[in-house]
């Protein structure tokens, strides 16, 4: 009984899963996820996980499957600066800059805070964006 209960609880967990670089494939563009500066993940309220090689792929997937995902789902993106670590996508600040060669040509980098993004941008002519501006 306890085992069953444990199974039931773990089966419903909404824990994100680390991206396996070089192994996992992007749900949207089918490419193998390779570049540690980029990557994204959706964890649905039911615990289903979708992995992406870049933020632009996740955005593309969300708009393609309009209505499938909502406020209850967790969106995660990889920190461009530290690489490999997932952060809450809604709270991130994004840089759009031609110099950033993200896997699907979105020129998009995710950073933890507005402060971090500003320091990273420096005098460059990139543009800062929030999550809400991106999903539009």
């Amino acid at each position, binding site marked *: 009984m306890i085992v069953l209960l444990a199974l039931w609880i773990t089966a419903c967990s909404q824990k994100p899963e680390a991206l396996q*670089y*070089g192994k996992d*494939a992007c749900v949207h*563009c*089918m*490419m*193998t996820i*390779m570049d*540690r*500066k980029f990557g994204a993940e959706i964890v649905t309220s039911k615990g289903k996980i979708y992995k992406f090689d870049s933020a632009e792929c996740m955005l593309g997937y969300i708009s393609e499957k309009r209505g499938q995902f909502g406020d209850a789902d967790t969106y995660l993106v990889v920190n461009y600066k530290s*690489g490999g670590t997932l952060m809450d996508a809604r709270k991130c600040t994004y840089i759009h800059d031609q110099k950033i*060669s993200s896997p*699907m*040509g979105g020129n998009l980098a995710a950073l933890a805070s507005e402060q971090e993004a500003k320091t990273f941008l420096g005098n460059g002519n990139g543009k800062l964006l929030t999550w809400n501006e991106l999903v539009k």
Partner: protein
Amino acid sequence: MKRILLICLFAVAVTVASHARTLVVAVNTALPDLKAAVAEAADGDTIKVKKGYYYSYNTLITKRLTIIGDGYPVLDANYKEEVVTILANGVTFSGFVLKNSKTGSMRDYAGIRLHKVHNVTISNNRLINNFFGIYLSDCDHVSVIGNTTSGTGTELTAGNGIHAWQCHDVIIMNNYSTRHRDGIYFEFVKKSRIISNTSERNFRYGLHFMFSDDDLYQKNTFRNNGSGVAVMYSKRIRMFDNLFIENWGSSIYGLLLKDITRSQIVGNRFVRNTTGIYMEGCNLMTANNNTFINNGWAMRILANCENGRFERNNFESNSFDVTTNGVLNLNKFDQNYWDKYEGYDLNKDGTGDVPYRPVSLYAQIMEQIPQSVMLMRSFMVNLLDKVERAIPSLTPESVKDINPKMKPWTR
């Protein structure tokens, strides 16, 4: 008067040309490295580098020079920088060993970088252990011929072997690329040709197109890469006479096509791949005269592909010939040879008298319940497929070859 002036100009040009010098670089001489020689040289000169070991921390080639390595001299960046960057038009760079570029994550360090140049030839170099091998950005009319490039061999610090971004009229010929992320990578590259290259054991793709139109790749071999070739978001790509071999594993394909239009796949061979061709969102494709041997899935065509024509191909010893995830309307199969065809040919014209349906019932079941793969080749599955072939009811009506060949096409 004008004519005399022209003649004078011509004479000057000739004398300048005839005064082109040859500078020789050798260890422990007045010109101890390439950098010193470039500083010394003028446009049109030739620099000959003698056999030896040189350190090269991003040597900039800023003049129109012919640079030739004599006996494969080594240029080593010692993990600190790029090795060589070419910033002048009309440069020829040939016969070097270039190794150990920096492997940064923020910048794409390369063995040979070309930026905003044209009429440059990079030939017969050996690139070893660089982040990116040969990196072209904003270039046109560039030839990359007969080079070999072997990457870092670790998944996380591997860049692309030959990387082209925003170029046109480029020729990539007779190169060999291994241990990189993608063997050859094209992003925004138009009207270019990739001929007779070999790409093997790269981590992601042997050859990768993104947003690149009107390109041709022909007579290349893609062996044992993450996936063989990926063509994405591109138009009018011609894929002729290539060999896709041993690209094995989950979510791994011989040829992965996503959102491409008006492209041709002709005369290729797909041997021992998990999936020979995977197509998603492809319009107006033609796949003719190809051979599929010993693949798990020969072709997987998703239902959002339209107006495809698949003619005169050979399908032999594949676990599944064609699978799809819905109905395949407006796609035409004609005159293919299917080794699983069990029809008859009463009038002996070489064409079977009953149509062949390449999507088996079992493949349809697999689509709904992937776990049923464990029943493959079982008696029940064979029985199901036999019944379905005799009285088709569940397999898609639209996917059929009306003129299946009795004998394989000879190539």
